[in-house]
């Protein structure tokens, strides 16, 4: 048997240096953005949904719904202006759920295997991959805001900048929630199930479409549901950030939920999960 000596163990196991982490992180985000831009239909599909809400739903309700002056608004606003933050959060909700599900289920299992066999901590890889999904959602949200601006829905100029950190935090929180759901709930086998049981209830039972005070007037029960809905806090954080303000309560809620969801999602993530429920492979 031909045996050659190999180099010392220390040479073989170069621990992940800071540069390694940085390169891997950049690579993961770069790949996700590249994939997104090369799938143009995905880009347009992501924009159609909020634009339909903005230009059809909001246009119809514009006259029917009167909104009083509530923070962060300093003057009367039209309904289409009101729902912009909710629609930005909706883009992130869809993107986060879709991206996270694909991390856990078979659709991306191939590329996830490549990622997970990288000699870096699994938590770092999963967080990087989550952030890559958020980077994609940022492109979608800004494209949406630009189109909205082009059709006369103007926000404070600085708001386009101040909303960025809020979008990163909310995107991470929603992505982590998606990953946690996908890792732990066996019944959510496809995206349609998630739409019906997670995305739509979260979106409608929040402050995305109506202010909470208006909901309370009509249904105190629904008001309490909205108060317990993480999506409400994501919407409010974005709403205030778009006007250069920080809603501290929403920020604390989103940051706290992000910590809990992310910790639980990383802990619950198991590459063998999808396989365990199916017929075992060779």
């Amino acid at each position, binding site marked *: 048997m031909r045996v050659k000596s190999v180099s010392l163990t220390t040479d*073989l*196991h170069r621990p992940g240096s800071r540069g390694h982490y940085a*390169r891997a992180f950049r690579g993961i985000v770069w790949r996700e953005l590249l994939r997104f831009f090369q799938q143009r239909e995905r880009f347009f599909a992501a924009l159609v949904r909020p634009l339909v809400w903005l230009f059809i739903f909001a246009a119809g309700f514009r006259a029917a719904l009167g909104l009083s002056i509530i923070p962060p608004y300093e003057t009367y606003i039209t309904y289409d202006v009101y729902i912009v933050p909710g629609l930005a959060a909706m883009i992130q909700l869809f993107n986060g759920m879709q991206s996270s599900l694909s991390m856990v289920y078979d659709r991306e299992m191939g590329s996830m295997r*490549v990622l997970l*066999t*990288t*000699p870096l901590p699994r938590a770092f890889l999963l967080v990087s991959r989550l952030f890559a999904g958020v980077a994609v959602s940022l492109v979608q949200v800004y494209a949406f805001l630009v189109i909205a601006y082009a059709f006369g829905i103007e926000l404070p100029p600085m708001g386009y900048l101040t909303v960025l950190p809020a979008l990163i935090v909310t995107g991470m929180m929603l992505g982590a929630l998606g990953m946690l759901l996908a890792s732990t709930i066996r019944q959510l086998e496809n995206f349609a199930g998630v739409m019906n049981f997670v995305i739509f209830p979260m979106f409608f039972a929040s402050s995305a479409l109506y202010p909470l005070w208006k909901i309370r007037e009509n249904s105190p029960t629904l008001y309490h549901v909205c108060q317990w809905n993480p999506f409400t806090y994501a919407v409010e954080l974005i709403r205030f950030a778009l006007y250069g303000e920080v809603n501290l309560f929403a920020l604390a809620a989103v940051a706290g939920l992000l910590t809990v969801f992310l910790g639980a999602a990383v802990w619950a993530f198991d590459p063998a999960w999808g396989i365990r429920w199916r017929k075992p492979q060779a």
Partner: protein
Amino acid sequence: MLQSTNGERNGGPILAVHDVSYRYGARRALDHVSFELMPGRFTALLGPNGAGKTTLFSLITRLFDTREGRIEIAGLDLKANGSRALSPLGVVFQQPTLDLDLTVRQNLAYFAALRGLSPTEGRERMMRALDALAMSERIDERVRALNGGHRRRVEIARALLHEPRVLLLDEPTVGLDVSARASIVAHAHRLAAEEDVALFWATHLIDEIAPEDDLIVLDRGCIRAQGRAAEVMRSHGAANIGEVFALLTEGSAECELNL
């Protein structure tokens, strides 16, 4: 029994699997599996579908947690050292893992970044690996435009970018035509012989194994035989590997090692 860390330094095995078992619920997938891989050797893991080959690969690559037994890569215990122990490992999975919408270059650049290579270093190694597999001219083509054999070559080139000491290939020739298969098998043998890489080649195709290769026969989660392929044939009075395979996989479900 392999001694941790020192074995590899003294020219011992680069990968050692000790008494590893794994279950999917009540079903036993691997039962007290033990073997070692040596640098510069081509080791074939031969087993029928359902033998436990992919499960074994998933354990070695840490996709599954090793609950029973121990796996050491270059002397480092996989469980104790976590992802760090995966550094010397290159993997070609059974399922395609390339991104079809990206070009060959983009796929490889992504992997180079994951392995911490600088862009310059990544580019150089990419060209070297693709040259060796006669794929450098296709570097700017989308993977979707490549045929199955060429995609496999790109996956092998990718797995070699970080110059691994162990290369795991899980049924890499499934679905390929005869010439593509022959070319990939030949390249894998060259890698072992010339680059001192320990090649671990899972297959159920007996014609991919040469008599001078190391052979591990896995069936229903048990190792039925291991050693130099020619020796395994001789010890079983078989004229070829096909006969050995039939002899060893038609027996009882109980684990008996037939050396």
